């Protein structure tokens, strides 16, 4: 079930109503059933894969706690759990890519092989496997008590607001909330509704309208000139941000209606001054996952520069591959890692001077934000390209075809929607929409609601753009 559908608009109020009507002891069951319905709305049979992961990791959690004092056995259970989860990921997400490349490699060596598989990726696989793994790791480390109730554990992995596109929750944040008794609270409803409304605006009005231009230009590169392709790069940066941010915001709002607080996934990432800051603000649940479970175990930053650079590259390449099984994603992750290393090296070489005047500092900050945005935008091209050939075609057209081809015409409404979003992103830099509304007079608040409702209904794109991160 997708958030921007009539089905979800019917489903959500029913679930919320049932949640508050049922006694606490039955709520987990209702939420689990609702989550199953939500997931099975896409392709019902894929729930079996989810079930396998849940059963293995639940069992692993219980066993690891039982054999806490037998380190070897605990470690074996831990490894079995991680390997089995990663195997699911490998088979369903990476096998097509691996077999295709093996076929190509063999062909280049003069051997004809037909290893290529055509396995369909179950929706949200990367998200829920990572969420499940975080539980196993936390239990192994002793930071989290194993969940004894299978239903609650299954609900932790399957909780529908964040099931298919995150945020990738940690057991420390979500599991205990699922056990807590939630009372009906107007404030939660109000905050949840605000977030959902704002999420719909960001996704349906901004992201989907931008998507129309991006798909058109990237799909017909030979017809457009360089300015159009450059414009399209700029638009894609906001499309992917608004698409994912919109989804996360709706997820947060949906959970909030029932009193659950999910972690923030974005904090105005395009206002970052450097790539390190960008990753503190972009897809926070994933970047902190990699930080806690890959980067720090590798040694983090408390190592020599060379080793640190290696750690960073490993983390970013893994992050790239996490997004998708293609060379473009690997390249995208590598580019981010490399930029991170270069920036750090430059900062070490040229430390900022404290004595700068306030205005000079603001000027430098603005330039840094622009620099980071431009580089991230260029990297998004790598992310968006369907393959390396397409990537090459985009860059060639973007920088060599200023004279020929059509100029993409952008409707004024598009600039208004994008302008409104950029303004909101600046205003909401250190806060969330629901909290920001809190302090406003009632008339202003309702005026904002009216404008958003109207825009979501009357100005949203009518083209069907699935959430971009669904494919991961």
């Amino acid at each position: 079930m997708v958030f921007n559908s009539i089905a979800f608009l019917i489903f959500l109020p029913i679930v919320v109503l049932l949640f508050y009507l049922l006694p606490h002891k039955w709520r987990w069951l209702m939420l689990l059933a609702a989550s199953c319905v939500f997931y099975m709305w896409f392709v019902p049979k894929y729930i079996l894969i989810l079930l396998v992961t849940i059963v293995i990791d639940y069992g692993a959690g219980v066993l690891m706690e039982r054999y806490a004092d037998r380190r070897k056995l605990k470690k074996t259970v831990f490894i079995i759990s991680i390997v089995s989860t990663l195997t699911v990921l490998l088979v369903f997400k990476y096998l097509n890519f691996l077999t295709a490349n093996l076929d190509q490699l063999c062909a280049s060596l003069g051997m004809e092989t037909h290893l290529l598989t055509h396995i369909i990726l179950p929706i949200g696989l990367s998200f829920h496997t990572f969420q499940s793994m975080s539980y196993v790791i936390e239990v192994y480390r002793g930071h989290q008590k194993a969940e004894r109730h299978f239903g609650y554990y299954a609900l932790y992995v399957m909780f529908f607001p964040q099931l298919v596109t995150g945020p990738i929750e940690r057991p420390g944040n979500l599991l205990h909330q699922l056990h807590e008794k939630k009372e009906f609270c107007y404030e939660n409803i109000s905050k949840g509704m605000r977030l959902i409304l704002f999420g719909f605006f960001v996704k349906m009005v901004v992201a989907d309208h931008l998507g129309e231009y991006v798909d058109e230009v990237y799909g017909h590169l030979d017809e457009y000139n360089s300015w159009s392709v450059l414009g399209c790069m700029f638009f894609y940066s906001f499309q992917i941000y608004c698409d994912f941010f919109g989804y996360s915001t709706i997820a947060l709002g949906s959970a909030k209606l029932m009193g659950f607080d999910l972690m923030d996934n974005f904090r105005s990432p395009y206002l970052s001054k450097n790539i390190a800051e960008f990753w503190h603000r972009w897809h926070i649940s994933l970047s902190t996952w990699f930080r806690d479970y890959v980067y720090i175990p590798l040694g983090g930053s408390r190592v020599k520069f060379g080793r640190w650079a290696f750690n960073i590259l490993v983390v970013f390449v893994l992050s790239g591959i996490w997004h998708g099984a293609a060379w473009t994603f690997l390249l995208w992750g590598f580019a981010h890692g490399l930029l991170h290393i270069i920036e750090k090296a430059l900062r070490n070489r040229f430390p900022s001077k404290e004595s700068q005047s306030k205005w000079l500092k603001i000027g430098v900050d603005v330039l840094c934000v622009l620099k980071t945005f431009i580089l991230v935008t260029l990297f998004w091209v790598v992310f968006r390209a369907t393959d390396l050939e397409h990537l090459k075609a985009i860059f060639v057209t973007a920088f060599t075809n200023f004279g020929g081809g059509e100029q993409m015409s952008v409707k004024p409404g598009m600039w208004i929607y994008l302008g409104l979003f950029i303004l909101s992103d600046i205003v909401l830099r250190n806060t969330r929409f629901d909290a920001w509304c809190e302090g406003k007079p009632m008339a202003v608040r309702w005026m904002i609601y009216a404008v958003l409702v109207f825009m979501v209904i009357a100005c949203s794109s009518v083209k069907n753009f699935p959430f971009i991160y669904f494919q991961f």
Partner: protein
Amino acid sequence: MKKLLIRIGIVLVMLLILNWVYSKWFFEKDLRKHSDIVELSWQVIDDSCRIIYLGESSNNHYGDEESNHRKISDFTADYFPTMKMGDLTKEASHAQTYYYMLKHIPATSAVETVVVTMNLRSFGPLWIYSKLETPLRKQLVLLEDYPPLVNRFLLAFKAYPVKTEEEWNELVFEHWRNDTFSIPNFAWRTNVDWDYGMYSYGWYDANGQRDWDLTALACHYIKTYAFEINDDNPRVKDFDAIVDLCRERGWKLVFNLMAENVDKANELVGKDLMLLFKKNHDYLMQRYGSLEGVTVVDNLNLVRDVNFIDQDWTTEHYYEEGRRIVADHLALALREFYPDDYHNPDSLKLDVGHYFLGDLRTLDKQHPYSMTLMLTADSIRPDWDMVNVAFELKRQDDLCNPVFAVEKHGVQGEKSIDSYAVKEQIQKNDAWDFATYALPVDSVFRTAQIIKLYVHNFSDSPIQIRNLDVSFRPAYLKPRVKAQTYKSADANDGK
């Protein structure tokens, strides 16, 4: 709770205001942008448009090499030069689309008669669950009967089937797999069985090699036409809704059942598929042909293989001759409603089941025979068991002795003539009057090699005769042309 109720109240007021704003400044623009069928009807239907033709690609397709690109609706309109016929054609449309198109014709319009394309293929799963359904159904959302803002809300939240091509295909396969044929002792259980049977058995070329192209085409004919229409078919429900709507709006309704390539279906697949054609055809004719205020123009078998543009696929795209045949047939049905506006065309063979000889002849002792319709027995379909004959006649006095004759030549050269007196049917002198006959298509008809239909007058008193109209049909269908509506421009001659 009070707080909540106040908020709900505010939301309701807000929505009412937003609906007003949207209706006033945005809705029409959105309709033009997202529901172009309404835009189309706004362009086409004006105060003078009395007949509208609703069609799909069968109306506006022409062969690449053809210089004449005129549509079926254009050819039909030629018969009614004094009337304006509107044409609402949209590719891949079907009954549901037509229903919405009709629903949005303004009540103030001058529309009197609605011609709705009825496409046999559109009743099958291949069309019902076509990938084109997503954009088509999306177009209809803004045309729902809700307030404009609600319609736009439904459009924004995709209240139409958003499915990928694979998902649509899966639905089609589901029906092919699960819909069983209800015909007793039928050779095939489901479409899939039949398709597989054809694939396994297949076609071979002259060298005895498997002809995969022909086999694939035969399989495609099975996929397209091997289904049974019943009351649960969604298209039947849509056509029923059109009937109700037309009754409500006081419109005359004509369903124009399009010609399919039955020649090729018969050649490639054979009698089992022909049986389904007949069954589905009979279902539609019985369901709609007998309804008051509804006319079904039956073109199903009229167009021959050579007149179909697409030879390697199933479509209703005809070359000019095919388009003309359908148009002529339709015009004849419309003549029933607009006899005074009907422009008498040249003598024309309309179709294998319907013949019209529009000449005017004077019959006297020297020239006793009228124009003659000559048929071969193999042109009479097995399901035709009635023949309706009508012509117009003007006499000077009652001394004339006109006779309508059916002359049958047997295989051995034997000849028999059935004669029917005309005199009783003619009441007036010096005025055009009508003679009509409903005759059974008996065994003599079927075994004869050649059949001739004509009128003769051997008397001294001359008569004039024109517009010999002969139509063959199954007995349960009402005559397509009612003699009492034959009123020509000079029908009141002599008054």
